[in-house]
């Protein structure tokens, strides 16, 4: 029973981080219907940037974290401006090919800069972050993941619900022509969604890097886990992405705990196939409001 609870807690913490990462992916898809295959590389880039600033640059953790977020946001913004914007209005398949190209390009650049080795962060999380409930202990990394996950989910929830830019972003996702007719800067919304996506990818990259160590190949393949997550949650639902993330996180830790660790990374994709067969729109896909 204790083992079960322990796995569950770990699963939820990891899942929350998957969910945050998937949120960025869904945001791009909702705003511009672009499927971003370079999501894993954005995630890895964030982790490496943070690593460079803390381990090599010697910056304090908080400063490095904020700097990494800012840099990732700018990176996403630039990617949209340079690569995606010229393709607005072109067939979707070309845009998807572009993001696949971007993913190879980023991966190559990161291998060039940091090499293919596995790095680990210096241990900077205070031991006091570790929580204890009876027989269950939550290691500091997982507590950190939980706090960061909950904080950013709340932050983005409020952003989309109440801020003007958040409402404009939702309006573009809802009806682009109508948004255009009211003067919503649709291209700026696209750029903003890329910026935010890169930012949330970096957050999850940092946390996953602390847990598993950072390595270009591993982190970018973790990034691919957004696919099972968003398919499970429904491609167009941000809440769905978060719930899907938690489900995949739980599934992974339970598989790792009870079956075998080598099956752990495969099981999300098995679930992806099964969900696609049974519920092609995901468990939480938007119910189309049919009325004119």
């Amino acid at each position, binding site marked *: 029973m204790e083992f079960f609870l322990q796995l569950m807690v770990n699963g939820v913490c990891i899942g929350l981080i998957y969910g945050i990462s998937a949120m960025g992916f869904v945001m791009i898809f909702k705003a511009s219907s672009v499927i971003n295959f370079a999501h894993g590389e954005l995630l890895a880039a964030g982790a490496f940037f943070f690593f460079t600033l803390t381990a090599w640059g010697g910056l304090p953790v908080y400063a490095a974290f904020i700097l990494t977020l800012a840099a990732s946001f700018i990176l996403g913004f630039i990617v949209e401006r340079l690569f995606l914007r010229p393709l607005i209005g072109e067939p979707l398949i070309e845009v998807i090919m572009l993001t696949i190209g971007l993913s190879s390009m980023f991966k190559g650049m990161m291998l060039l800069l940091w090499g293919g080795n596995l790095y680990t962060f210096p241990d900077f999380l205070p031991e006091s972050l570790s929580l204890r409930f009876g027989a269950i202990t939550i290691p500091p990394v997982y507590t950190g993941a939980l706090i960061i996950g909950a904080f950013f989910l709340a932050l983005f929830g409020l952003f989309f619900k109440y801020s003007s830019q958040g409402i404009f972003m939702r*309006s573009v996702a809802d*009806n682009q*022509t109508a*948004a255009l*007719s*009211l003067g919503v800067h649709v291209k700026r919304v696209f750029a903003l969604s890329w910026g935010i996506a890169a930012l949330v990818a970096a957050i999850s990259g940092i946390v996953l890097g602390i847990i598993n160590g950072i390595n270009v190949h591993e982190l970018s393949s973790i990034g691919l886990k957004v696919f099972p997550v968003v398919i499970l949650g429904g491609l167009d639902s941000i809440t769905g992405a978060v719930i899907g993330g938690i489900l995949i996180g739980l599934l992974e830790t339970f598989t790792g705990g009870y079956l075998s660790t080598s099956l752990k990374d495969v099981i999300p994709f098995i679930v992806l196939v099964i969900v696609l067969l049974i519920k092609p729109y995901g468990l939480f896909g938007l119910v189309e*409001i049919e009325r*004119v």
Partner: protein
Amino acid sequence: MLLEINNISVVYADVLQVLKGVSLSVEEGRVVSLLGSNGAGKTTTLKAVSGLLKPENGKVTDGTIVYDGCPIHNLSPEEITRKGIIQVLEGRQPFKYLTVEENLRVGTATRWTQPYQEDLELVYRYFPVLLKRRKSLAGYCSGGELQMLVMGRALMARPRLLLLDEPSLGLAPLVVREIFQIIERINEEQGTTIVLVEQNSKMALQIAHYGYVMENGKIVMEGTAEDLRKNPDIKEFYLGMGSAETIRSYRNVKSYRRRKRWL
């Protein structure tokens, strides 16, 4: 003149010519109505003004559109809306998954750093129904409510020139009357200049000051609303009030010739 369209041609996808030399002018503070049958080019004319041709792969290839002294043809919709021209699209296009109030807030996109509370109250004064439904999703509102919503949304932008595309589409006669009264009030109280595209010519000519009739991508007639209302051909072809003795049929040679002059 607030808006002057001089002899514009509009081509879609480089091959399909929809407007063939349309000229019209709109005086500040007026309601100008644009009538004509389906496919005459009314909506295209509005989209040429608002810049919404661009995403549909259309272009103004010839002629000029001058608004308030500066040429605006082929500018992007972002720039045009910031000059104070807002189009209300045909067929009510609400943001279905946003609440009524969030829909209205999108209307402030052209000036989102400024406060919007007063404008919200103004819109709720014109459309009290919206106040009651402000928290509900727009996707679940009725057709009449949606038409009011999209007009209110446009008002939030404080437009100088409002382009209305078929506000009466698919609405019950009483709702249509209510909406036209509100259009008239907006024009009088806010001083908003309005270009109104309508199939419901009778209603449109009641509130408009001036009118244009389009056929096949050209303007075929213009005049004050009163003149148009009295014109026998307009009465017959657009208001559906043919005199009793003329049977409207192409077999009737006289009727055929008269209609032919328009096309």
